[in-house]
């Protein structure tokens, strides 16, 4: 009955499912203390992290591995799912995001309603993210994305009181439904063209499909996934949703769930692009005879990347509210990540993966700081943060590190991720060099709005009327209203930003070898 050989590899997912069910069950039994449901959620995520890390073969815990080594990076059409080391790396990144957000959220005023729902939905969405990272079939992938999406629609509105949250949730849901529809339509066209939905099989068939169906199918898939990845011009929902959602949920959306779209990009587009590289074919998309969809895809993605980073940056420059500025900066960072899949070499994939990880720490961490600062009764405008750095040095320094990382200043993880990404584009030569130039110009531009926040936080004198005394609800928490969990999560994110920034070799080495396997064996 119980096939351990089948169940074993899914142990991390099972742990998360168990945590989700436990939290919801306790809710039914009216055990709603935030410490209990929070602990279940955070510990569940932590156990899953250890199991995945063991599968990747990290030496002290490699004995806990549940996936046979022969099944990782096996290559070839495998059915619905396949374990790739890059997928496992992405699982670790997703679990890091969930862990940081969960840890921070334990520090809420204990009277707050909806805590079990929050943690249950968090672990459920994380489960979906893990499934995305092992997909090797288009339908499995899109269903896994839905497993992530539906809990996040609910997460945005879980407080059920704030009108802005409800509006954001509604917007998020409608756009999400549209995006799903587009993706499934694209998948159905590809199925019509190739007769299979297995991604490896599709990559292998290459130019055998019907050209019109293939191009249309990929176009709809790009549009559907671009909504999830907040690429311009499919980004408009993101700012309102990040702005309207509760702060911790914004951290999870921007730092966590959005990242599934980039792995989905890897899975869907790497095959057709690499097939082209192998054959070196000409661009003849609508003619008969041999054609290659790859160069068309690459140019489309390159244009999306440049437009996304530029528009995101320019709009971020104009923002007066902290959350909206971070949201637009998040859009521009998505443009950098897209460079990786456009260039589609092992170094580029490694760069994009590191950029995704860096963004989890920097943007997720930044939203956690925003949540902490909002908890202190500070307003939403950037100018409301005057003097925060000198009055609350811990929050100020941590936020400064996150912004410096986003700006790509050396000795932060953000520097290495951009460096690897841009140097991989230069190394690939051809028109990719211009992608690197566009990325660098945008990085230079972005320094403006990050430095402006530093100026406000550290140099401007606060208004005498502004108080930094937390409201009564949070005043009882440790660290002047922050609480242990939130303080620990912010400190952990900041420490990783600097720690990996100083010595990136272990992380980069692991990501690089995973990316090399991925390019060789495919999804």
């Amino acid at each position, binding site marked *: 009955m119980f096939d351990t050989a089948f169940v074993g590899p899914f142990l991390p997912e099972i742990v998360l499912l168990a945590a989700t069910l436990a939290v919801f069950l306790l809710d039914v039994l009216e055990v709603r203390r935030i410490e209990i449901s929070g602990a279940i959620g955070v510990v569940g995520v932590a156990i899953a992290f250890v199991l995945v890390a063991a599968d990747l073969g990290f030496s002290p815990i490699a004995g806990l591995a549940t996936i046979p080594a022969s099944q990782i990076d096996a290559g070839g059409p495998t059915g619905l799912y396949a374990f790739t080391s890059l997928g496992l790396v992405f699982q670790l990144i997703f679990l890091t995001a969930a862990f940081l957000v969960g840890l921070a959220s334990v520090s809420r005023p204990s009277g707050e309603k909806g805590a079990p729902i929050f943690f249950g939905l968090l672990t459920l969405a994380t489960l979906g993210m893990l499934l995305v990272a092992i997909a090797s079939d288009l339908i499995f992938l899109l269903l896994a994305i839905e497993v992530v999406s539906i809990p996040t629609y609910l997460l945005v509105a879980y407080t059920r009181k704030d009108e802005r949250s409800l509006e954001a949730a509604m917007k998020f849901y409608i756009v999400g439904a549209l995006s799903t529809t587009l993706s499934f339509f694209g998948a159905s066209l590809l199925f019509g063209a190739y007769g299979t939905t297995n991604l490896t099989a599709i990559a292998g068939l290459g130019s055998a499909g019907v050209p019109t169906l293939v191009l249309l199918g990929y176009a709809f898939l790009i549009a559907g996934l671009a909504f999830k990845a907040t690429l311009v011009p499919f980004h408009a929902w993101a700012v309102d949703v990040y702005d309207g959602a509760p702060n911790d949920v914004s951290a999870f959306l921007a730092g966590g769930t959005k990242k599934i779209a980039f792995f989905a990009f890897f899975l869907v587009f790497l095959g057709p692009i690499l097939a082209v590289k192998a054959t070196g074919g000409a661009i003849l998309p609508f003619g008969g005879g041999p054609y290659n969809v790859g160069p068309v895809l690459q140019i489309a993605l390159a244009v999306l990347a440049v437009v996304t980073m530029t528009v995101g940056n320019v709009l971020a420059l104009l923002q007066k509210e902290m959350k909206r500025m971070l949201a637009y900066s998040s859009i521009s960072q998505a443009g950098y990540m897209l460079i990786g899949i456009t260039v589609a070499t*092992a*170094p580029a994939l*490694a760069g994009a993966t590191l950029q995704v990880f860096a963004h989890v720490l920097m943007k997720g961490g930044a939203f956690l700081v925003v949540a902490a600062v909002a908890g202190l009764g500070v307003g939403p405008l950037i100018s409301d943060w005057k003097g925060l750095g000198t009055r609350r040095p811990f929050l100020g320094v941590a936020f400064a590190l996150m912004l*410096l990382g986003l700006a790509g*200043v*050396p*000795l932060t993880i953000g520097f*290495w991720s951009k*460096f*690897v990404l*841009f*140097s*991989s584009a*230069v*190394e690939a030569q051809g028109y990719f060099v211009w992608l690197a*130039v566009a990325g*660098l110009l945008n*990085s*230079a531009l972005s*320094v*403006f709005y990050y*430095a*402006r926040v*530093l*100026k406000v936080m*550290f*140099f*401007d004198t606060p208004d005498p009327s502004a108080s930094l005394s937390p409201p009564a609800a949070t005043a009882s928490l440790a660290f002047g209203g922050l609480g242990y969990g939130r303080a620990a999560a912010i400190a952990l994110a900041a420490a990783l930003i600097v720690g990996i920034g100083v*010595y*990136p*070799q272990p992380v*980069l*080495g692991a990501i*690089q070898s995973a990316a*090399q396997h991925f390019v060789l064996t495919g999804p």
Partner: protein
Amino acid sequence: MLPLISLMLATLLAGTVVTFLAGRSARWVALGVSALFAVEVGLLFLAFPGWPGYSSALVPGFAESESYAWVHLSWFNVNYTVGVDGISLVLILLTAILQIATVLYSWNETKRPAAWFGLVLLTCLGCFGVFVALDILLFFLFWEAVLIPMFFIIGYWGGPNRRYAALKFFVYTHVASIVMLVGLLALVFYSGAASFDYSAVYAAGHALPAVTQAFLFLALFFGFGVKFPIVPFHTWLPDAHVEAPTGGSVLLAGLLLKLGGYGLIRWAVFVLPAGFHLDTPILFFIAFLSIAWGSILSLAQRDLKRLVAYSSINHMGIVLLAIAVGSSLGLLAAVLLMFAHGIVSGLLFMVSGSAHHTFGTRDIASVGGATPTTPALTTFAMIGSLASLGLPALISFPAEFAALLATWDRLGYWVFLPLGILVVTAAFYLWMLQRMFFGPPRGIPPDAHDVPWYEGAGMGILVAFTVLFGILPGLLVTVILASPIQSFPGT
């Protein structure tokens, strides 16, 4: 062998951390760290084969070099590689001198002293790192690491318009750094250098075609030139200098501007000699423009600090001119001039800071005849001004003389252009001295006092080195020549 350079980096790093945490006793920690660093610089001189009588012209030739793997990936290798040659050694000496002088000068800092002294040490750490780094990324890391403490020094301790000045400084120099990084990376990827190490980059750069070298050189020149600063990218400098606190101005003029000159010589001129040769006319043009524009603007200043700031543009223009000459003598003069300008402009910024403390203004026209009230300040102002205008037996003289001699060798009568401008600037400094310190007393506040001991100590150290190396410039020349300069441009 003792890993002396890493030890020095560790000294400054640990010293910075301890200073930040030291609270009220931060100044003692900072002084101790600066003294220890100075001792280590002394050891470095002793360990250096060029001291004295080192003649072997190694290319690229670095003594005391240490290398460890940092990030090794399939398509690039980054190492932690550090080392010194004569050029770096002289500038490291400058770092040690200015660090100790700045700590002493700002001994009585009352606004968050722990943070202040920590940031001063951090700035010096960054500059030291730039001078010893022999790997592109390590170099870039230290280069950028200088920006952040200076951003906070200007923005938190500066004058009324400090926030604008800090932001402008950060954005200007950061954009330039990115262009510089692009240039260096393009150099690596287009030449196919095996790693980011200086020796690999050096070999690969030499192998490139001259036209490619010329384009890369221009990118690097822009990146380094903004720090110089070259006209027309100089506008961050007056704002930053005038708004910065005195200690910040000393480090800015004394060290940060030198990073531009050092970077240009080390990473552009030596690595891309053919491109440098092709681009020489552009360098000459920019150099003359900077010299002329800097001195015209300095003539128009009524504020003592602005006067010193604009004359820095002028002096760094002469450094660029000496580099552009491209001969062994010219480069020697450029390095010597950077050292001299570091000491002298530091001294003059301290003088203007002290004048501001005691007179309540830096306006040259509104104070006069200060000598009876402030004899010590007058002495320092005299020595600084005379050194700045190139009086023999003070440090600028041998440097400027060598620079003009090298220009004469290359350009002939064109040398009268910078020479004439130097004479005008000299006259202006003398006029400033006459108005502020001599003649009948005027506009002196009743509570005016002479410089306190710590400000005097800071300025005294700089005066001592101004005189020492003014009389014995040969000590520096021997060291500087223990570098690729000795045989530049080679065969």
